[in-house]
């Protein structure tokens, strides 16, 4: 091994820079969940846009079934995309960051499911788009606290849309769901894919 004393200032500088990068990467990987799917988000957005359009042309009674089917497909695909991205980037899914993300992300989704059933039961269909957008927004905002910084911003956008959706007729609720689950997923998915590796 060459004596460290023989290193040029440039080498020492490069070494210090690489050390700092290593420290930052390690701290980030140790504390945050980075396997959020970018392209997966774009695909989820496309299915939601499709659902929103289909709803406009089909009988009104089908509205909820169409959205719930779309939600299932998106949830399944999103999970697959997370596994795929984690595998590709070598980010373990049992890391503390991933666990915190899941613990923050899952409960509002569960509450959303219960609330949807209750609203259907009460015949309050008009409130469903707002409730779904709001609770998904809380999921994203909470999970995003343990992930890349753009995720909480997406959560806030969902909450804003959901707040509006609670006070408009069902037809507009459907359009706002298209804007939220469709456009927001596509826009933020593309940002994540570009900046955070897929």
């Amino acid at each position, binding site marked *: 091994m060459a004596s460290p004393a023989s290193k040029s200032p440039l080498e020492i500088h490069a070494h*210090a820079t690489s050390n*700092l990068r*290593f*420290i930052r990467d*390690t701290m980030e990987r*140790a504390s945050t969940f980075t396997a959020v799917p970018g392209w997966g988000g774009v695909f989820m957005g496309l299915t939601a846009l499709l659902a929103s359009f289909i709803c406009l042309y089909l009988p009104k009674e089908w509205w909820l079934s169409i959205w719930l089917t779309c939600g299932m497909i998106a949830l399944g695909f999103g999970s697959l995309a997370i596994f795929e991205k984690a595998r590709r980037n070598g980010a373990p899914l049992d*890391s503390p960051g991933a666990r915190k993300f899941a613990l923050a992300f899952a409960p509002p989704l569960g509450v959303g499911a219960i609330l949807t059933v209750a609203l259907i039961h009460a015949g309050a269909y008009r409130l469903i788009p707002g409730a779904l957008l709001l609770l998904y927004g809380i999921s994203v905002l909470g999970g995003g606290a343990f992930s890349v910084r753009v995720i909480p911003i997406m959560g806030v956008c969902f909450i804003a849309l959901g707040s509006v959706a609670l006070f408009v007729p069902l037809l507009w609720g459907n359009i706002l769901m298209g804007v939220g689950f469709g456009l927001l997923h596509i826009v933020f998915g593309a940002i994540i894919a570009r900046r955070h590796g897929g």
Partner: protein
Amino acid sequence: MSNAARKLDPGIGRLEPAAAPAARSAPELDRLIHERVRLGIVSALAANESLTFNELKSLLQITDGNLSVHARKLEEASYLTCTKTFEGRLPRTEYRLTPKGRAEFEKYLAHMESIVAAMKSSMHPAD
């Protein structure tokens, strides 16, 4: 070593501080943290309150033996504490950074940053 290099290199290459008494005031490079695996362990623990053996292993992608050897060294220097408990029948080893370990880590960070800053200012003296 040139003067510029000496300015940039307050600790590297000085295994025996006594050999260079003139530079005693400059921060010493912490050899214990400087090694890659140990730097990884300390960095990961700095970002979390505690991490288990398995979490550290998969995070740093190193072998059991490698991790336990380096963690032991850090433990011997009281940079971290190691608690062993049982979860059912499975042993569970948990690591935590001590206040001393955190202070040394911050010192090391400041040291690296000062090297980078010194280089920047020597390349752009007008800044």
